[in-house]
């Protein structure tokens, strides 16, 4: 592998890592602040992909579909928190797991009723359907660069939100010690709804952004969910910084593993997780 190809694979890894981060950020926040193990998080990713499919179909443009879908996902997240999840914050983890496991099936059934069981594709928008020539044999699709850019923007935005704003301070306080934050006058009820809606929207955004690059199929959330949990476990539960580091690490290991040792590729990520757990049982960035 020469330098040019190494750099391109690095680009691929960062792009995959950032996408994973969008998914894992919501999961780790929801767990860190509300203490809810959300197995249905992968379903929100699927929701995003199918929203991109349906909205692009009815509006004719992915760039319109994505903001509309993001707002819809925020609303769905908010409602789910208000109607269902808030009653489970103080319940046993087993209850939460049962609830969210059940939700996976409900979302799959709804998906089947709304959009059927077929595999769908979303076309890459014509304005981004071209490639940049990198080496004499390889070009890089423009949509991937767009995806990379959007993911970077979102990651930076999330970092600013959490580290530089008042809401972010409350979120950090909530993640550190929810009871204490409440005692000090943080409106924890509203904070919970906000964080949950944000988590759902981020996962759904990831699904919408990847839709033109991936095919959209039933149960597509389950594969991703496992990766998300790996990222959260490696990064340390509740830590957004940890999720970012872990996501990039998983991206690197997965992509370079696929290329360098294809026969072991599918287990390398789990070996990484096992190693981290062995030496840092609480993850890389313990709260």
């Amino acid at each position, binding site marked *: 592998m020469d330098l040019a190809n190494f750099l391109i694979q690095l680009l691929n890894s960062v792009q995959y890592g950032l996408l994973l981060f969008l998914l894992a950020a919501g999961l780790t926040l929801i767990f860190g602040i509300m203490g809810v193990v959300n197995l249905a998080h992968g379903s929100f990713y699927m929701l995003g992909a199918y929203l991109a499919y349906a909205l692009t179909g009815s509006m004719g443009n992915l760039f319109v579909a994505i903001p509309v879908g993001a707002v819809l996902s925020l609303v769905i997240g908010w409602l789910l928190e208000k109607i269902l999840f808030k009653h489970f914050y103080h319940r046993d983890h087993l209850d939460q797991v049962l609830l969210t496991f059940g939700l996976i099936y409900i979302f799959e059934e709804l998906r089947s009723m709304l959009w059927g069981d077929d595999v769908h*594709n979303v076309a890459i928008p014509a304005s981004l359907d071209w*490639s940049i020539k990198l*080496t*004499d*044999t390889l070009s*890089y*699709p423009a949509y991937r660069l767009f995806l990379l850019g959007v993911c970077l923007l979102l990651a930076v935005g999330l970092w600013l939100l959490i580290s530089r704003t008042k809401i972010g301070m409350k979120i950090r306080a909530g993640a550190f010690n929810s009871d204490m934050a409440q005692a000090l006058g943080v409106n924890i009820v509203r904070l919970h709804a906000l964080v949950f809606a944000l988590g759902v929207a981020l996962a759904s955004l990831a699904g919408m952004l990847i839709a033109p690059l991936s095919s959209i199929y039933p149960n597509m959330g389950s594969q991703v969910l496992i990766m998300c949990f790996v990222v959260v476990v490696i990064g340390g539960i509740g830590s957004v910084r940890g999720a970012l580091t872990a996501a990039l690490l998983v991206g690197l290991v997965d*992509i370079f593993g696929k*290329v360098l040792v294809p026969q072991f590729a599918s287990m390398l990520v789990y070996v990484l997780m096992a190693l981290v757990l062995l030496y840092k049982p609480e993850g890389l960035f313990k709260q």
Partner: protein
Amino acid sequence: MTTRRQVLTQSAAILGAVSGGLILPANAQNAKIRVGLMLPYTGTFTQLGVACDNGFRMALEEKGNKLGGREIEYFKVDDESEPAKGVENANKLVQRDKVDVIIGTVHSGVQMGIHKVARETGVLSIIPNAGMHAATRALCAPNVFRTSFTNSQPTRALGKAMMDKGHKKAVWITWKYAAGDEAGEGFKEGYLAAGGTIVKELGLPFPNVEFQALLTEIASIKPDAVACFFSGGGASKFIRDYAAAGLAGKIPLYGSGFLTEGLLDDELAPSAQGIVTTLHYSTSLASKRNDAFRLAYAKMFKMQPDVYAVQGYDAGQLLLQGAAAVNGDLSNKKALYAAMENAVIDSPRGKWTMSKAHNPVQDIYLRVVKGKENVVLGVAAKALEDSGAGCKLG
């Protein structure tokens, strides 16, 4: 009190009932033959299932909808391409509907379910698509026949064609699952035997379509050619990504025919020009038999046939020949199986025969994408037979 007369009449009644029972098989001779169709009528493989169904019915309709002189009754089960329900659905046909034969199916995982039931109950099973090796290799059975292919059959013919073009170093890429691995096995055997070298084998989990990292790797290796196995939506995605990555036209792409079969629409065709594939059929195959078949199919179903329709059609032809040899008495298994084993099927893909392991011995065609067609370049391998390794039949 029991008189002698009562005893006599009762015995006569019992005897009558018994002899009545004895003539039941003769009654069954006149009853309809129960044909079970277990195919995907919903889900990802719907089109494939419908094509098999259409082809099968068309073959029977051409012969007056009779098998060895007997009327037919159809029983349909939608297998949804759901492996978890395979055994249950096959059992439904055998136990509840008491079918004489199961025609099915498309998905290899579901086929394993049908295969298990076929081996346990001895029901006649004809496979119109699923190509998993086990059915006609280690787990072959006298009552199981296939009219399609084994997963390694089309790719086995690739090697020689690639070497003829001077492509000595190749990368192999596929989904890491049973069908992909079996196709890989066929490619490896054919290519190595022809003198080629596989410089790298790449894979990704089924049905993942995140090809980017692997395409980057291919560009960095710069092999003489790339050979692959993908099908359906994943195949068109691979072709488009291959072109978007700037590899099309620079590193020739080869594949099992399922890469392009039935997928060349206006959107995909520009990215697919020049892709060379091997398959046991092509709609553009120039023969009187194929022309007649395509015309009749288009008339009957108002759509164009594909390879799956041909496989279903041949399943119908095979059953017709078997049933004719035993005059519709499908319970005469020995004669029935012998007739099916020795059948010569006059297929739209060309004449083919059954191997000892009950898989087609057939020509594999070399095709190239031109416009929206898989244009046939010639025969890549004549009368190619699957090894049937581990099968003890015949």
